[in-house]
């Protein structure tokens, strides 16, 4: 298209202007800041990490390290057990918060507090409660004549504390998600089953659960991926203690990299979890529309 002057004296748009006006260019210009951020701080670090993690020696070192094997088991407990218990409780609790009594609304508001309080203060409170000498738990155990428990000084109860804190902190969030999911179910369905005289359990079995199932699965996947990378809760609750027995992948990678100076081991630790993570993300991409 050559620039010609029309009668009105208006020139046809130049090629630069046309390119600038195309939807594709404009779309890229508007999303450019995001794309630059993602490329620089997600894609590049990812590629860097995978590149380093290709070294087979790191994996040999990892799998011969008993701490690493213990860490994998701990992570499976944390991701497999804690997340599923939490989401199942969230599903049940969302049913309770769905009742339309006025005081339930107050309960729901108070119930959100652990979600609103940042993780660190909550963890500190738990840690002091679990302190073997001056904690309230051992104090109460003593009052009722039980022996005190070294909560954070033995593997099982220390990992248990991490799991319990995780449930305490994140249960409200997922409950609210499921509550919103329940509220999105059209009321006519329950009106119809009421005519058929369905019980509460039948309502759940034939209406609520089938309609919440996909949401439940998506939330399970999301929560598992988030929890797989959790550093803050295990690190601040136990720091891997006692004797590096309660690490999860993220805290062990930190220890390898920043306390032992083995960058390649740290990266390999995450790389071990990467295939699972990418599989989960693939499923999510198919299920979730954004």
């Amino acid at each position, binding site marked *: 298209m050559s620039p010609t002057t029309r009668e009105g004296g208006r020139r046809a748009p130049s090629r630069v202007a046309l390119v600038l*006006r195309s*939807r*594709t260019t*404009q*779309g890229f210009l*508007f*999303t450019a800041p*995001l*794309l630059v*951020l*993602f490329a620089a*701080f*997600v894609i*590049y*670090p990812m590629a*860097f*990490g995978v590149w380093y993690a290709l070294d087979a020696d790191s994996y040999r070192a990892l799998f011969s390290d008993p701490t690493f094997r213990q860490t994998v088991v701990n992570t499976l407990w944390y991701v497999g057990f804690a997340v599923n218990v939490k989401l199942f409780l969230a599903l049940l609790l969302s049913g309770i918060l769905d*009742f*339309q009594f006025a005081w*339930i609304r107050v*309960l729901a*508001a*108070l*119930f*959100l*507090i*652990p*979600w*609103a*309080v*940042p993780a*660190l*203060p909550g963890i500190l*409170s738990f840690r*002091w409660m679990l302190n073997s000498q*001056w904690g*309230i738990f051992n*104090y109460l155990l003593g009052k009722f004549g039980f022996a005190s428990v070294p909560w954070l000084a033995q593997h099982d109860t220390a990992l248990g504390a991490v799991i319990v804190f995780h449930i*305490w902190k994140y249960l*409200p969030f997922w409950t*609210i*998600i499921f509550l*919103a*999911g329940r509220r999105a179910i059209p009321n006519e369905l329950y009106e119809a089953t009421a005519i058929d005289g369905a019980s509460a359990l039948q309502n759940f079995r034939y209406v609520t659960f089938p309609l919440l199932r996909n949401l439940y699965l998506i*939330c399970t996947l999301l929560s598992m991926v988030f929890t797989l*990378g*959790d*550093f*803050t809760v295990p690190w601040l609750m136990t*720091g891997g203690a006692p004797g590096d027995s309660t690490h999860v992948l*993220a805290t062990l*990678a930190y220890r390898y990299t*920043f306390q032992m100076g083995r960058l390649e081991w740290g990266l390999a630790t*995450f790389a071990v*979890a*990467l295939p699972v993570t990418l599989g989960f*993300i693939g499923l999510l*991409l198919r299920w979730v*529309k*954004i």
Partner: protein
Amino acid sequence: MGDDMSAPGRRKGRGLQVGLSLLAIVILGWTLFPVYYMLLLSFTPTDDLFQPGLYVEHPTVRNYTYTMGQDNPFVRYFWHQIGNSLVVALWAMALVAAVAALGSFAMARLHFRFRRFVSGLTLFTYVIPSSFLSIPFFKMMADYDLIDTKLSLILAMVTFAAPYALWVLSDYARSLPPEIEEAGAIDGAGTLATFLYLYLPLIRPPLIAIGTYAFLYAWNEYLYALLLLTGEPRVTLPVAMSNFLTTDNAPWNLLMAVSTVYAIPPVVLYYCFKRYLVSGLVSGAVAGT
């Protein structure tokens, strides 16, 4: 439920309420006790710290006055540290709002060709645990000599908070009527003018909400702050608090006072904006079913 209940239905409703209230007591005990215990410790004088109990015998505000007055080696840089947290959170808020507003306009209003690619990349960033990227990110910042600068932490926070913000804004923007572009076209406005003068004012409510989300994300962040910042006057508040734990004789009552102060802004903001903070995820997930 319960509006048109007959008499037996109402009786059943009462039985239900009793059962529910018993459950509610359990739930509230579980939910509130750790928070109550944090507050209780923050009002406990040091002399009583080693005598556990369910209430404070001699409540004191001394832990708070020490904190505010930086009157203890552990809280020597309290105002610096809370200031650092605030600066990082405010920058994250502003940048996330800007980046996500621009992005959401493209995603929701311009039907450009590579939208699926951008949304895939966004979801990927949202889902991939940020800790997986922390070590390479640290290495990168060390290479660019940006360790110990707030900029490095702000960049990380903006990157990881942007996907959710984009999601919420795009979702809202898609529900706006198509008249925006038409009005812009009639006035002869270009795309940029349409964005600035027609689009931005319309998305103000969710923009405030995602700004809050980004603020909270940065305020609560621990791992990246721990990695990227060093030196007592330069760290953010959570890192400073976790440094208490490295010593054996940490003053836990003082620590709980700092905890309480640190927790107040997020609690206030969560309660003001909770509606917005969950709706994005839900609509995304429910729409996908």
